[in-house]
C-alpha cells in the first residue's frame, strides 16, 4: 500500500517559495491561509538551511487524535484529509500538530476560526472527486487526476519531493549517495532505514561541504574588513 509522504532536501532548498505559491495558485487559498511555508534556520550565518513545511500526513496523526468531531481521517494512501462540513473550527488540530499545518481563515473572538484548512496532499476531500464543491472547499484533487502535489512538482530545485514514501526515499537516497552527504540531517535511519547498498552513507566529498568554518573571518558575521 502506498504511503504518501514529503521530503524536503535541505541541501537543495533555496527558500524560493515556489512551493508555497504553487499551492496558493493550485488550491486558491485566501490571503492568510498558507498550507505550506518555508522556514530558514541559522539565517545569514554558515549552516543556514531552509526547509519547506506543510502537513506531513503523519501515520499516527495528532490532529486526528484530538479532533473533537473526528472529522480528520486517513485515506488508504496514508493521506490525512478532513471534512470541512463537520469541522467546528475549534483549533485543537492546530494545537496538536507538530508542524503548524492546520490553518484557519480567521482567528476571531470567541475562538471563531472558521473551517480548518490544511494541505490535502492535493487530493481534495470527501466530496466527489474533482467536483466543483470539492475544489471550493479543499482545492484541487490532483491525485484523482493522476498527478502529484503541485508544490513538489513545481519546486524550484526539486528539493521538495512528494509521493509514495518508498519511491521518494529512494530518490533521496540516490541523491545522497551521489553527493556523499546529507543523511545525517534527516534522521535517515529512523525515517527510511539503511541505505540501499548497505552500510552507512558517509561523506564522500573532501573537506567541509560548505564554508562552515566559523573562525574564518570571511564567515564571521564580524566586521566588514575596511
Amino acid at each position, binding site marked *: 500500500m502506498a504511503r504518501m509522504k514529503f521530503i524536503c532536501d535541505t541541501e537543495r532548498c533555496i527558500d524560493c517559495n515556489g512551493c508555497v505559491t504553487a499551492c496558493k495558485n493550485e488550491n486558491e487559498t485566501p490571503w492568510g491561509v498558507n498550507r505550506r511555508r518555508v522556514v530558514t534556520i541559522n539565517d545569514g550565518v554558515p549552516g543556514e538551511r531552509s526547509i519547506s513545511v506543510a502537513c506531513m500526513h503523519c501515520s499516527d496523526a495528532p490532529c486526528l487524535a484530538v479532533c473533537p468531531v473526528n472529522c480528520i481521517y486517513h485515506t488508504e494512501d496514508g493521506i490525512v484529509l478532513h471534512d470541512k462540513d*463537520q469541522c467546528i473550527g475549534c483549533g485543537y488540530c492546530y*494545537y496538536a500538530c507538530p*508542524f503548524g499545518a492546520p490553518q484557519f481563515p480567521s*482567528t476571531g473572538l470567541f475562538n471563531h476560526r472558521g473551517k480548518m484548512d490544511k494541505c490535502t496532499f492535493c487530493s481534495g476531500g470527501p466530496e466527489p472527486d474533482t467536483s466543483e464543491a470539492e475544489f471550493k472547499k479543499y482545492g484541487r484533487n490532483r491525485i484523482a487526476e493522476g498527478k502529484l502535489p503541485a508544490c513538489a512538482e513545481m519546486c524550484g530545485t526539486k528539493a521538495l519531493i512528494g509521493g509514495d514514501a518508498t519511491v521518494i526515499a529512494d530518490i533521496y537516497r540516490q541523491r545522497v549517495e551521489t553527493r556523499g552527504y546529507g543523511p545525517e540531517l534527516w*534522521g535517515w535511519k529512523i525515517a527510511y532505514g539503511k541505505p540501499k547498498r548497505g552500510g552507512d552513507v558517509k561523506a564522500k566529498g573532501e573537506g567541509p561541504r560548505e564554508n562552515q568554518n566559523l573562525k574564518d573571518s570571511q564567515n564571521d558575521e564580524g566586521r566588514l574588513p575596511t
Partner: protein
Amino acid sequence: MSFTIRSLRTFLGLLLSLWLLGIAHAGVPNNRAEPAYAEEQTILQAEKDARTPEPGLDSKSSGRVHIDRHYLGQYGSTEGTVIVQRGGNQWRIWRNGPIATAMGTILVVVLVAIFFFYRAVGPVRTEEPDTGRRIRRFTSWERHVHWATAISFIILAVTGLVIMFGKKLILPLVGHDVFAALAYIFKYLHNFVGPLFIVCSVLMFFTFLRRNFFRRIDWQWIKQGGGLVSHKHVPAGFFNAGEKSWFWLGVTLLGLVMSITGLILDFVTFGQTRYIMQVANYLHIAGATFYIAAAMGHIYIGTWGTPGAYEAMRHGTVDESWAKAHHAVWYDEVKAGVEPGTFDDRVPPDQRPPAAGSPPPRPAH
C-alpha cells in the same frame, strides 16, 4: 457537604501538580521525548542544526522560533517561524490519555458516590415541624444572580463535556453529521456563555462575599463534618463552613481558573501561542473536573440532600424551623435583630395562602 479537609487537600495537591506539569512542559520542543514518528524525527534532525537559542522555560512560543525575513509580517499561522513543536503531540497524549481518563473517572465516581450516599444516608431533615413562619433568606437579586450563574454553569459543563467526550459517547449513536452539527452549536454556546458565566460569577462573588467570611463557629462545624452523616445539626451562621468552602474553593478559586483559562482559549486574537493554549487547556479541563464534581455535590445538597434548602433559592424564604435547624446562629441573630428585616410572613409568591393550622409546605421528594 462533599468537601472534607481531605478532599480539599487532594484537590490543592492536584492543582499544584498540574501547574508543575505545565512548567515542565514549557521546555518545548522536548528533545528527550521519544520521537512519535519518523516524519517528525526528520524535521527535528534538521532543526538540530540550528544555532539560534531555544526558548527557555519562560518562553511562551511553542517551539524554536527561527527568524528570517519572513518574520517581518509572517505569513501562514501565527507561528510561521516554528518548524516543529513537540508540545503538540505531548498535549495530544496527555489530553487524550491520562487527563481524559482522570476527568471521566472522577466525574463518574463522584456521581456514583453521591447516589450511594443518598441511598445510605438520605436527606437531612429538620427535627421540628415547620412553624409556617417564613424567614426571608435570599433577596430576589441574590436569587437571580444565583440562577443565572447556575444555568450558565450547567450549559458550560454540558457543552464542554460534549466537546471532550462527545466523539466517544454521542457520535457513535448519532453519526458524524448530526454530531458535528451538535458540536458546532455546543462549541459556540460554550464560547459565548463562558464570558456570561464570568460576569455572573463576579456578581455572585460580591453578592455573597460578606456572608462567606469564616467565623470561629465554622471551625466547630468542620470538626463535626457538618453533621452530614450523623444528621446532627451543627450550629452555623448564615452559611455554614461547607457552603463557605464551596464559595471560596469552588466559585471563587475554580471560577478564576476556569475564567482565566477559558478567556485564553476563547479570545485567541491576542497572540497566544499554541503552547499557552495547550497549558490553558490542561488547566481548563482540570478545573472543569473539580468544579463539576463539586457542583454535583452542591446541587445534591441544595436539593435532595437538604429538604427546604431549595425553597430558599427558589422563593427566597425558609421556614423558621429550617433556619433554626440548619443555621442556628443565623436564626438567633435574626431573632436578636442583628440581621434586620429578614423575617417575612408572606407566603411564597407562587403558593396559595395556607389555611390556618394546615401543615406548612414541605419539600416534595
